[in-house]
């Protein structure tokens, strides 16, 4: 547990600025103070007007804010290096976990934040002229199944199905989940599916988009597709109410 603290300079520690924290540069928002913390002063006004290059943080000179993240070009990374990294991730999670179930939720949790980020990035890259905000369950699922899947895994998911028995359950099916391509599960690990990481990505994206859901990964092998995985999406009941009030 303790080594977690060392590795992660947690984001929340950055945001807990107290009332007494005053920015030295005149820039930067302090939530404990509110808009008074970053109100424009004669000095900062001068900087803004004269476009002086200014170093606010060590990374100012080469910050992400100056980069273009909007490029349509697909940035590919090596699958093998990803697989090695993921292998370590699974190992690390496994070490901390207290069982198969726990291991899967850990993987899910790691994917979750990726999903949150990719959702926004995807919509940004689609461009505001052509893109629209997803407001219906079926539309957001099609988006996840199509564009979203493709931008992460390089191909669309194989199937999108609706549960016949339960109204708030949907399934996205991938025959060969990219992440578990080189993973074989030992017998004594039973039904462990490391695509829980991908389930986490879906869950993060859906939750962020206000389609609150729990997503789990289940192995359902077919002939020729031993890795075939069903991502079971269980939406919160409140969404069904929203959907029926808004679109019926």
């Amino acid at each position, binding site marked *: 547990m303790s080594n977690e603290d060392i590795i992660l*300079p*947690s*984001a*929340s520690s*950055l*945001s807990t*600025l107290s009332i007494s924290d005053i*920015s030295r*540069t005149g*820039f*930067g*928002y*302090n*939530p404990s103070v*509110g*808009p008074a913390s*970053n*109100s*424009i*002063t*004669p000095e*900062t*006004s001068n*900087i*803004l*007007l004269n*476009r002086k290059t*200014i170093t*606010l*943080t060590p*990374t*100012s000179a080469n*910050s*992400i*804010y100056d*980069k273009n*993240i*909007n490029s349509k070009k697909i940035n590919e990374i090596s699958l093998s290096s990803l697989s090695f990294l993921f292998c370590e991730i699974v190992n690390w999670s496994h070490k901390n976990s207290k069982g198969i179930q726990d291991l899967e939720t850990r993987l899910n949790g790691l994917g979750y*934040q990726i999903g*949150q*980020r990719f*959702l*926004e*990035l*995807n*919509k*940004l890259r689609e461009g*505001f002229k052509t*893109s*629209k*905000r*997803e*407001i219906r369950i079926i539309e957001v699922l099609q988006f996840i199944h199509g564009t979203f899947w493709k931008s992460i895994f390089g191909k669309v998911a194989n199937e999108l199905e609706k549960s016949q028995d339960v109204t708030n359950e949907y399934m996205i099916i991938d025959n060969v989940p990219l992440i578990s391509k080189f993973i074989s599960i030992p017998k004594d690990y039973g039904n462990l599916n490391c695509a829980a990481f991908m389930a986490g990505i879906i869950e993060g994206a859906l939750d*962020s*988009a*206000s389609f609150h859901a729990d997503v789990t990964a289940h192995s359902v092998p077919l002939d020729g597709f031993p890795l075939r995985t069903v991502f079971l999406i269980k939406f919160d009941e409140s969404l069904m109410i*929203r959907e029926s009030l*808004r679109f019926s």
Partner: protein
Amino acid sequence: MSSYYFSIVGTRDNPLYEVEFSSFKTATTSSSTGSSVPGISQFPTNIKEILPFVTNSSLDLIEDFQWTTSSFNLGKIDSFYGLLVYGFITQGNIKFILCFEGSNNNNNGSSAQKYNENSIKQFFVDVNDLYVKCLLNPFYAVNDAITSPDFDLKVKLLAKKYL
């Protein structure tokens, strides 16, 4: 020169980022007034203290739009207590809200208003770009306050550019 209050509101109705400023454009032309520094907001106290609440109350309407229209830019969503409220919502349920005092320049005609609405929209789109960049930071989590001075600077530059 109207004053603006811009706020980014997270999924828990909490402000992630706020800033008050006034239009830089008119300030430079009317700098003969001397005392006023361009960009410094001119909200009187009785307005200043309610701005976050006006923003919060507009969430009622934003939520209504959120599930009826599929556009990101919501345009003018409310006018409250003499304040105009414009809104924008991302796919990730993050709201950008801009409040400013309804000016008496109605006689400027609809073209000026249209221009205004366009620049507000452009401002929102560019802020969205900044927000996503901020979100890509692995040490930032959704609903955290955005405290980065660089982000602050960039938003203010956008304000100067468009408003």
